[in-house]
């Protein structure tokens, strides 16, 4: 019934279509002058307190919004102001309550009357009766971000054109050659405004070179207003972190499992005690027992050997190794095997690759057509491999990668040691994000912010297990990460990653005067030893040249001199990151928009992980340095044993190790330990492992030993029947049993680990194994990436070195690796895909390189087994699959071998025919599931 009048009114409006009528209608909707305007104290405050106070009050300030004081309401939220006095329709506060978006739980919404009261109050000017205005409407914090964005590239730290520095109010008043930048209170007389209004600044022809955009009209307006007001400056302390009673993160928020320190747990007593080799087994068996399950029977020795070899070295064991292992009667034969594998230099290549996925390693930048090479980034890859081989404690490994430049004084050192160089190389971890900012048009502030965001994402998801990137534009929707905490984290890295004082990947393009305001991110601090080696090498060449120049000058001498010159070694530089001091202030970017700055924040760790006992203290790393020490403080905070942060760091890493051994993590979402991530399947085990990791001085190799010597790891892949060995490889039981597909068995997803999962080889394992089996693998270690060849048809060929040393070009991944899910690093990869598509089959069946490797494999088999077909098949199985063929396999292979030889004999000589037949057999084995899948 209530709707009638409106409908009538509308039809009247539409019916006549008169402008006058519409005016009348709108006039009716607006409150008439006589309608009482709501009073804040009487009408508004109680509503806000009752309906919004729980999340936006004094103690809890979700989205940085506090509605309990006029100042808080005026300040608005992290997304900006919530009030436009006089215009309810443009006020976020009104929008939110009108549309029912707030309060979000819908349990206690505002009544219609309350919404209406708020509307009237806003439309009436949103006045606060008792408010004594203190803070000026515009302060330097509104102006500084604009000047940083538009002006300081040429009038700032790196460059002072016209001797002018515009970074602070004082510096502006000091002015430059032409006088002070502004006259307080007098916009008309202020030089900066004149230059801006005349469109002289920033100089339009040099925008691209300086990588700035002209100031926008609204920004000029704001600056004008600020000057008119007398350029007010307030002594706002930046928002610092660490108070336990943080209004943006509640005590309840901190209770979430991953933010708690690992709990002390006792290893349970379990029923199947016979299978408990170490505590890992006890935890897993306990959960299995709850479901009436147990572990599968132990896998046979050869399966274990192959599994362990792939897990730790990424390559299949050689037949001789298998024979020796089978013959070893020592009850600790398996443990000794694990020790041998851990000591192999191949270990670092295998596990280093896992870490390079986390970091997002690539040999070039990205996001541009031309993918700029990173000439010395391989030093980082080598650093990672060496660190794994040396079993560098993980806390130290992280500290080096996050703050290596602040660990040891290389600035004043008489000699650059290997350790100092490693420290610097390690920080390339923070430089792995694809970076287009070397190019003229993709080097502006927003482009730089993307690079910084990617680096934060790598750190957040890879190391901390948190989806920090979500908090770039707004407070995290699910996890207690306020937007402020994202910018605090950004501030920690500001000394090295400053969007207003940028180091480019390389200085190319504009080489003019202005580009001096940018630097390059290469450091000359290679070891003194290397520098001397290069100097001596080049000096020797110089001596040679001088001798030749002293003699008679013939065309031959000129040629010799040219050749000698070509042999000079270039200067070595490190691709790295270091603190350059004097970072720009960090403001929150509301809604992630770099043109919409909010509160000033100080460097600090995320509040949800801050606790009373764990210090976060920023001190310069050594005297007489520009380095701020921010990242060092953070790295130490992050790896502090017995803290929430250190606990999370340890959990994330042991979970990653677990994932690589058991196919899935205890927390499946390895990069997300937050609320939208998975809960741990075995929380006590995870906590026990995290603490054990720290107790073992963060040693990865100890973790491998622990996990791999457990019964859980040593079980088979198929749940056996009562009294039967798990595999029955030489029986045909399974084959003879044509029972229809059974219902999903218990623990179908293997979350309880009732068996070892069957795993497909990762791309690198497949390629490296193909090469090794064919006797073609080149195990040269370290150094610049092994160049790939791009064929005109798009096929990308790689050489014969291990895949970790193959050049990693974003646009041209080696085709074989790409087919088997080598990830594109955007910016990194925490969980590889495992696709199963026809082009993989086409590649393994038809690719010329694979077929050539099959021929070489056949030649090797022939060399090692002689001419007897059965021995050949046996040998091929041992080489490729670390086991003998079953009777059935042997029969099938021999039959086919005979038929193949017969067929080929029709076309080629008998010797050639058997050679070709064997090659086809070897090629088939390389294509077989037995080869591609590891039990």
């Amino acid at each position, binding site marked *: 019934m209530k709707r009638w009048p409106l409908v009538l009114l509308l039809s009247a409006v539409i019916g006549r279509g008169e402008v006058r009528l519409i005016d009348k209608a709108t006039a009716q909707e607006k409150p008439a002058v006589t309608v009482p305007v709501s009073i804040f104290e009487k009408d508004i405050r109680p509503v806000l307190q009752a309906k919004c106070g729980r999340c936006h009050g004094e103690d809890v300030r979700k989205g940085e919004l506090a509605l309990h004081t006029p100042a808080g309401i005026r300040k608005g939220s992290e997304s900006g102001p919530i009030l436009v006095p006089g215009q309810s329709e443009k006020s976020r506060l009104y929008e939110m309550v009108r549309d029912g978006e707030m309060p979000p739980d819908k349990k206690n919404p505002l009544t219609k009357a309350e919404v209406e009261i708020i509307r009237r109050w806003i439309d009436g000017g949103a006045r606060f009766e008792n408010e004594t205005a203190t803070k000026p409407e515009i302060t330097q914090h509104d102006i500084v971000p604009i000047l940083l964005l538009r002006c300081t590239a040429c009038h700032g730290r790196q460059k002072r054109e016209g001797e002018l520095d515009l970074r602070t109010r004082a510096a502006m008043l000091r002015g430059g050659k032409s006088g002070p930048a502004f006259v307080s209170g007098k916009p008309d007389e202020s030089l900066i405004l004149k230059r801006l209004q005349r469109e002289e600044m920033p100089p339009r022809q040099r925008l691209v070179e300086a990588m700035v955009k002209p100031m926008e009209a609204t920004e000029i307006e704001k600056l004008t207003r600020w000057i008119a007001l007398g350029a007010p400056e307030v002594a706002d302390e930046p928002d610092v972190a660490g108070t336990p009673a943080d209004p943006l993160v509640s005590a309840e928020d901190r209770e979430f499992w991953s933010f708690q320190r690992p709990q002390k747990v006792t290893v349970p007593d379990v029923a199947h005690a016979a299978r408990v080799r170490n505590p890992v087994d006890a935890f897993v068996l306990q959960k299995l027992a709850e479901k009436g399950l147990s572990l599968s029977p132990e896998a046979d020795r050869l399966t274990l050997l192959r599994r362990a070899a792939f897990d730790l070295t990424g390559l299949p064991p050689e037949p001789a190794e298998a024979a020796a292992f089978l013959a070893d009667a020592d009850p600790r034969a398996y443990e000794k095997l694990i020790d041998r594998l851990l000591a192999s230099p191949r270990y670092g290549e295998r596990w280093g690759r896992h870490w390079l996925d986390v970091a997002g390693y690539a040999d070039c930048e990205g996001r541009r057509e031309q993918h700029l090479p990173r000439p010395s980034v391989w030093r980082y890859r080598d650093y990672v491999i060496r660190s794994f081989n040396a079993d560098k404690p993980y806390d130290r490994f992280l500290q080096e990668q996050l703050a290596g430049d602040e660990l040891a004084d290389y600035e004043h050192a008489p000699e650059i040691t290997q350790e100092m160089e490693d420290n610097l190389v390690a920080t390339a971890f923070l430089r792995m994000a694809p970076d287009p900012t070397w190019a003229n048009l993709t080097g502006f502030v927003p482009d730089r912010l993307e690079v910084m965001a990617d680096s934060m994402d790598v750190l957040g998801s890879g190391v901390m297990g948190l989806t920090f990137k979500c908090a770039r534009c707004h407070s995290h929707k699910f996890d207690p990460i306020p937007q402020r905490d994202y910018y605090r984290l950004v501030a920690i890295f500001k000394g090295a990653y400053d969007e207003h004082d940028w180091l480019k990947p390389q200085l190319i393009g504009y080489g003019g005067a202005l580009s001096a305001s940018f630097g390059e991110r290469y450091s000359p601090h290679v070891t003194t030893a290397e520098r001397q080696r290069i100097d001596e090498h080049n000096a020797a060449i110089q001596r040679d040249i001088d001798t030749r120049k002293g003699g008679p000058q013939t065309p031959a001498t000129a040629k010799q001199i040219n050749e000698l010159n070509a042999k000079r070694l270039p200067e070595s530089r490190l691709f790295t990151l270091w603190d350059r001091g004097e970072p720009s202030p960090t403001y929150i970017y509301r809604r992630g928009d770099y043109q919409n700055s909010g509160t000033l924040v100080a460097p600090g760790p995320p509040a949800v992980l801050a606790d009373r006992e764990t210090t976060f203290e920023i001190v310069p790393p050594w005297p007489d340095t520009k380095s701020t020490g921010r990242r060092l403080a953070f790295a130490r905070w992050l790896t502090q044993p017995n803290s929430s942060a250190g606990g999370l760091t340890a959990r994330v890493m042991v979970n990653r190790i677990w994932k690589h051994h058991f196919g899935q993590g205890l927390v499946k979402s390895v990069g997300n330990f937050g609320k939208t991530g998975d809960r741990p399947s075995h929380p006590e085990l995870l906590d026990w492992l995290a603490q054990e990791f720290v107790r073992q001085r963060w040693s990865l190799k100890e973790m491998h030993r622990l996990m791999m010597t457990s019964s859980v790891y040593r079980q088979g892949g198929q749940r056996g029947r009562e009294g039967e060995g798990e595999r029955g490889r030489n029986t045909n039981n399974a084959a003879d049993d044509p029972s229809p597909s059974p219902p999903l068995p218990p623990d179908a997803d293997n979350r309880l680990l009732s068996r070892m999962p069957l795993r497909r080889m990762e791309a690198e394992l497949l390629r490296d194994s193909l090469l090794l089996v064919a006797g073609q693998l080149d195990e040269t270690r370290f150094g610049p990436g092994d160049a790939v060849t791009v064929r005109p048809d798009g096929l990308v060929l790689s050489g014969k070195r291990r895949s970790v040393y193959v050049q990693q070009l974003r646009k041209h991944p080696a085709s074989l690796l790409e087919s088997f899910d080598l990830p594109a690093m955007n910016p990194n990869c925490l969980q590889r895909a495992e696709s199963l598509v026809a082009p993989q089959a086409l590649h393994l069946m038809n690719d010329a390189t694979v077929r050539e490797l099959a021929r070489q494999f056949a030649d090797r088999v022939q060399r090692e087994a002689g001419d007897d077909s059965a021995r050949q098949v046996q040998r091929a199985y041992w080489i490729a699959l670390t086991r003998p063929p079953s009777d059935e396999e042997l029969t099938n292979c021999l039959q086919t071998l005979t038929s193949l030889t017969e067929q080929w004999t029709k076309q080629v000589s008998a010797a050639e025919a058997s050679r070709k037949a064997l090659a*086809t057999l070897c090629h088939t084995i390389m294509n077989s599931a037995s080869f591609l899948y590891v039990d």
Partner: protein
Amino acid sequence: MPPITDTTFKAQEGGMKKTPDPFTRRSFFTSVGAGLHGAALLHLFGRDSFANEPRVATDLRARPTHFSAKAKSVIQLFMNGGPSQMDLFDPKTELDRHHGEAYFNKIAGEVENVADAGALMRSPFKFAKHGECGMSVSNALPHLTKHVDDIALIRSLFTTNITHEPALYIIQSGHMPSGYPTLGSWVVYGLGCECQNLPAYVVLDDPLGLPINGVENWHAGFLPPTFQGTRFRSTGSPVLNLRPETADPPEIARLQRDLLNRLDRLHQRQRPSQPNLDARIASYELAARMQMSATDALDLSQETRQTQELYGIGREPTDSYGRRCLIARRLVERGVRFVQLFINAQIWDNHTGLATDMKAACDRTDLPIAGLFFDLKQRGLLDETLLIWGGEFGRLPIAQLPKDKDERKAGRDHNKNAACCWLAGGGVKGGTTYGSTDDLGFAAVEKRVSVPDWHATILHLLGMHHEDLFVNEHGLKEKLTGVQPARVVREILA
């Protein structure tokens, strides 16, 4: 939309949440792969319960749409480089009037090559109205004018970056950073494919070279690699490694296939309940079928001379693009879901030589596209095929002068604020001209269409709602259209 995550459950000691937990289900499917078992299990879980959850597919079987739609497949005629809107589809009489006047300072922040910026420049081409709808098209595209009554033209498209690489990421994937799935990947992720003997998403790139950003124009980002575009080369072997470079005699190949099959089945029998192993055997069978069907689809000798002529095959400058257009028709005819056509380099990137070079670009593509229109129509395929045409951005109303400042060789610089694009075929209201730019053609002003709007409209025409096509990635609900609201441009729907 209800929240995708149940925020109420607590971290229980050892508690594995069974239902309803989309994450468990999702990761289950990523582990299942493309096998028949995957299909059966997908069925077991019941499709309907997925209403507000991501489509958790890792395979290419055809899947139902969100609502019924006419278009079944897409041919994307991608015009890399950024075609000039005011010289093709958006006549500007004011530009004629203000020809030669200075304008640079007003738009300086929007210009890529500031040193070469010249004055306002009128179009060297002449416009006329065509078709029953009276759509304005310049004389650079004489053949397309015959089909304007089938076309819905958008004059108010805009994007957010003036550089090729980021602008290409935006138009292909809806996001400026690289690493997001492209439109084609989302489409085959959502709909699968009718045809299992050919890839669902085929890319026909120019034999003369890859476009800017190369293979990133059709990558699947964080979707499984199954959904990335497969390049078909229009000459030689269509797919990499489709056949060995030196093939074995057929009998040898047969013996090898048989042995592999027997060995794999033995392996599989000892490892029951491993759907991946079934799927892998199936993938070898599909590979064998693909050898036949891919070769067949690309065999243009099966077409009559008349048809070939329709596409301009056999003469220059249309032969190459004509072949790709004809192959595109043969692919959609066979049920391929998404076909994406590229031209080498950036023939539409006319920084200089607008009058000559842009005309050359038109001459290479105009007749083949008109031929494709005619051919699809005569075979009754236009109704279920969606044709989309456009580049990564538009161009500026001011001139860009070459280094020698020779005005006769002037071109236009990039412009993110306005571009033209068109759609035609299944579900599109032909003869529509939608949106407009300011008097000079610098920026879209009326009925502006963002790239996410454009994507949402394309998905809509295929029967999908852009908000319902998503995956959960790192705790985010990732969609083609991103986080900002996108709008289906309903005014161009039939």
